[in-house]
C-alpha cells in the first residue's frame, strides 16, 4: 500500500550502492506513512538535492567515494537545520559514531538491523528526534559520561569556563588597558598574583594574549 503523498514522510536515501538504495526504497515505499522522494549516490549529490527538495528525513551512509557522509552531514545540517538526518552504515567504530553525532546527526543506525527495528527507529527518529542502534547506546552514554560538566555561563550568558570574581576584575582592568603592575596596585595584590590571574584568564578564554582577552571581554559585554 503506497503512502498518501500529502502526509507521508518524505525520505531521501544517500548510498553509493544502488542495490542497497533500491532495497531500502522498496521497504520504505511499502510503508503507509513513508515515501522515498529522492536518491543520491554520494554526498555531493545529497547536498544539492537536499537543498532543492527539503526532505523530512535523510538516510545517509558514511563511506561513499568522493564526498562522504560526514562531510555532507555538516553541509546539510548548516543549510537545513531542521532536517532529520540519520546515518545508516556498516561502520560501528566509536570515532565515526561520535563524529556523526557531534556533527549534528539525529541518529545512527547500523545496516545489520532487522527491518522491524529499522522502521521503528526511523519513526522514533521523526517523532522524538533521535534514533540510535541499541548496541551503540551504551558507548554513547559512556562517552557522554566522560565529558566534563559544562562550565557555568558568564554573567552575560557567554558560555566559557567560569572566571572567578577576581579573574573578572583583572579582565576588566586588562580591557581598560592597564599593565600588570597597575592592575596589582589597583587591586592591592602582588605582581606575581596578577600574572597568575592573567595566565588563568588566557587559558580559560582560550586566547593567546591580553589583547585577545580584552576583545572577548568587550564583545561579551563584561565592560559597558
Amino acid at each position, binding site marked *: 500500500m503506497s503512502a498518501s503523498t500529502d502526509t507521508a514522510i518524505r525520505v531521501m536515501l544517500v548510498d553509493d550502492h544502488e542495490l542497497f538504495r533500491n532495497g531500502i526504497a522498496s521497504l520504505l515505499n511499502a510503508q503507509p506513512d513513508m515515501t522515498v522522494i529522492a536518491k543520491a549516490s554520494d554526498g555531493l549529490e545529497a*547536498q544539492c538535492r537536499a537543498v532543492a527538495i527539503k526532505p523530512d528525513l535523510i538516510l545517509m551512509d558514511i563511506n561513499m567515494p568522493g564526498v562522504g557522509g560526514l562531510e555532507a552531514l555538516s553541509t546539510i545540517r548548516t543549510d537545513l537545520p531542521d532536517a532529520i538526518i540519520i546515518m545508516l552504515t556498516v561502520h560501528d567504530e566509536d570515532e565515526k559514531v561520535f563524529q556523526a553525532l557531534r556533527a549534528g546527526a539525529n541518529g545512527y543506525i547500523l545496516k545489520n538491523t532487522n527491518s522491524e527495528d529499522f522502521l521503528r527507529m526511523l519513526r522514533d527518529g521523526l517523532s522524538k528526534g533521535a534514533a540510535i542502534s541499541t548496541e551503540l547506546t551504551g558507548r554513547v552514554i559512556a562517552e557522554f559520561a566522560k565529558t566534563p560538566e559544562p562550565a557555568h555561563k558568564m554573567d552575560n550568558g557567554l558560555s566559557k569556563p567560569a572566571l572567578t570574581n577576581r579573574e573578572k576584575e583583572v579582565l576588566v582592568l586588562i580591557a581598560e588597558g592597564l599593565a600588570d603592575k597597575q592592575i596589582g596596585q589597583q587591586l592591592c595584590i602582588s605582581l606575581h598574583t596578577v600574572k597568575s590571574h592573567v595566565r588563568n584568564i588566557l587559558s580559560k578564554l582560550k586566547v593567546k594574549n591580553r589583547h585577545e582577552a580584552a576583545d572577548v571581554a568587550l564583545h561579551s559585554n563584561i565592560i559597558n
Partner: protein
Amino acid sequence: MILDEFQEKSHVPTMVEIDKDIVPVIEEEQQIQLLRIAQESLANVDKHAQAEQVEVSLKRDGKMISLCISDDGHGFDPAHNIGDGAQHLGLKIMRGRVERVGGSLTIQSKPGTGTQVTARVPYTHTNGEFAK
C-alpha cells in the same frame, strides 16, 4: 561497465573512444566524479533524448582531460528549467562535481539538434612523457 549497462537498458548504439593511456593517470577523485558525470549524462539521454546514437569519448585535450557525451536526440534549451526542474538539478550536480575537481562543464544543446556534455578537468600527472 556503465556503458554496457546503458546500452543494455536503452538499446541506443554507443560509440566509445577512450584513450586508455590516460586512464591510469587520472586522479582518483577525478575518476570518481567523471564516472558520475558520465552516468548522469547517459541517464538523461535514456530518459529525455530519444536518441538514435550516442558517442562517449575520454581523451587528453592539451593540459586537460576531456570527457564528452553527445547524442543526436531532440536536445533542449539549457537556459530553461525542464519540467519540474529535475534535469536542471541534475546539471547543477554535474557542474558541482566537475568544479570540485578543478574542472569545468560545458553543455551545448538546442531543441532539435542533439546534446553535447563536455567535462574538462586539469591533467595533473607530472611523470615522464605525459608531462609534455
